[in-house]
């Protein structure tokens, strides 16, 4: 039996990754788990910076708005996965955790020992990749399992 772990986020790339993972799996034999990292790091706060109180510099409103946005997005991803797997009659496990994508995926890989880790790409250009870094490249170099990158 092959254990497939698919990393999901709210970009279109991970939908393609999920489609491909479903294509390669032998439905009666293999097991699929979806993992979604809810990233409440600085990037989200920067976007919500408009809600920082100009007098006191209070971030709490910004954080609250960011967190609720993130929660909404996370639910969107979960529902999208549910719909997709229902359409293809696939049983799956869903793991949702707060944290940076790389850390969450790393911890899940260590816990579940999948045979294949499937991820999409974020379509970053070369410069962005240099600065932001690539989650998929990180796992290709460091994962203890086979990694499938779906463009």
């Amino acid at each position, binding site marked *: 039996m092959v254990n497939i772990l698919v990393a999901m986020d709210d970009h279109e790339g991970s939908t393609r990754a999920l489609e491909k993972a479903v294509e390669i799996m032998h439905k009666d034999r293999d097991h699929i788990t979806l993992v979604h990292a809810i990233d409440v790091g600085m990037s989200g706060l920067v976007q919500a910076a408009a809600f920082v109180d100009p007098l006191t510099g209070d971030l709490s409103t910004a954080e609250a708005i960011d967190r609720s946005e993130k929660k909404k997005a996370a639910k969107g991803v979960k529902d999208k996965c549910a719909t997709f797997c229902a359409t293809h009659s696939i049983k799956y496990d869903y793991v949702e955790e707060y944290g940076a994508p790389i850390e969450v995926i790393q911890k899940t890989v260590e816990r579940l020992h999948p045979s*294949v880790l499937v991820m999409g790409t974020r379509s970053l250009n070369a410069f962005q990749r240099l600065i932001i870094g690539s989650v998929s*490249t990180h796992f290709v170099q460091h994962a203890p399992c086979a990694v*499938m990158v779906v463009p």
Partner: protein
Amino acid sequence: MHYLVGVDATPYSEKAVDTAIKMIDREKDSITLIHALEPSQGSIAKSVGEVYSDPQSAKKEKRWKTERKSVSHEVKQKYTDLCVSHQLSFKYVEKKGTPVEVISKISMKIKPDILVLGTRNLNVVQRLFIGSVSKYFVDNPPCPVLVVPFVHSNL
């Protein structure tokens, strides 16, 4: 589904082929194995117009070429036997060039559904100078790319 698997003479690609064979659906899928025959120093020199001045390098060149031929024959034998024993619908292709060039060209030609590669397990410094075939294809994927590590694989 059409699988394209990059092979070479190392045990790293055996892992990649084994993985592809485990995943493949015997009735519906097909597999193409591609072996890049890397150019020798001599042929690179020749291609830019240099000519051998001493007989020693010409002899070395000839020896390298014969060696490479026998190695590539062994590799071809090994993988064709493996595919036949698993009753797979397969094709074995050998092409001259660097792995990146050869695999890029053949993916453009046959448009596989998945490209399967092993890793050469290079360390950081080696990767800086030699470059990584698998990293290239993860950063510039012509199609979904499955990278199979040599150690720790559960497949």
